[in-house]
């Protein structure tokens, strides 16, 4: 909340918060003044009692700061939930301490980002994980292909006919077709 030196701004936080709640609830200014003046919060500071005019001025200024802060608090809650979802999407277990710590750092980063940057940033992080997942899948598929190919080569080599084909006459193309035919046979 911006620094304000009005009477209400000088109140202890709990009492000021109560005043703001009463204003938000539409309580009469007289009732608010009675609450504040019945405490010694202003008198102990040598400040004159709160008036309805003071409340009206606060309504136009400090009260808007308070309402904005409440909206900011709700925004933070939403960012925190979103951060933990992002961490989970990246493969983290949201129940672990490490993930909750990471989500905390992510929340702070998103909170500091300007509103127009926060959503694209969150989407970019989610997309990054998507790209990493796709790359991992390709890598796994390649590994699987290499393993399958190696097994077939081994089976072919174990078959004496493979050596006969390689050492026999015929063009390279003919030998290749013969080996492929042998591979089809051993794969059955």
């Amino acid at each position: 909340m911006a620094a304000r030196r009005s009477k209400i701004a000088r109140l202890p936080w709990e009492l000021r918060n109560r005043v703001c709640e009463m204003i938000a609830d539409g309580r009469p200014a007289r009732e608010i003044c009675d609450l504040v003046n019945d405490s010694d919060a202003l008198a102990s500071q040598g400040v004159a009692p709160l008036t309805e005019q003071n409340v009206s001025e606060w309504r136009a200024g400090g009260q808007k700061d308070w309402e904005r802060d409440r909206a900011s608090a709700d925004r933070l809650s939403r960012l925190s939930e979103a951060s933990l979802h992002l961490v989970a999407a990246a493969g983290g277990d949201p129940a672990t301490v490490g993930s909750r710590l990471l989500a905390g750092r992510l929340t702070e980063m998103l909170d500091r980002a300007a509103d127009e940057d926060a959503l694209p940033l969150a989407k970019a992080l989610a997309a990054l994980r998507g790209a990493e997942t796709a790359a991992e899948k390709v890598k796994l598929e390649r590994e699987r292909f290499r393993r399958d190919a190696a097994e077939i080569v081994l089976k072919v080599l174990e078959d004496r006919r493979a050596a006969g084909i390689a050492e026999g006459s015929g063009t390279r193309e003919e030998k290749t077709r013969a080996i492929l035919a042998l591979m089809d046979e051993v794969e059955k």
Partner: protein
Amino acid sequence: MKLQTAVRAFLAARFPCAFEEPILLTRINRSGVLDDPATPETLHRALVTLASRFREAEVLTDNDGTQAWSATPLGVSTWTQQDKPYVGD
């Protein structure tokens, strides 16, 4: 704002995220809401009180021994009843 209230508000708004004490100290002092600046000692006392006496915060320990603090659902409930005071930049 009193330190205990500020700590509860900071953690509750960011639940279920967790924060180490040095980060909490920096962020809460920077928010400008405190009646008096927090020190590492006063912050730690406030956290321990929130956890042990009110069950509104909890300390978490990572596999590498890192300790972090988070609000509990009860802490979030109390914060909500207080109309969600905001502690941030």
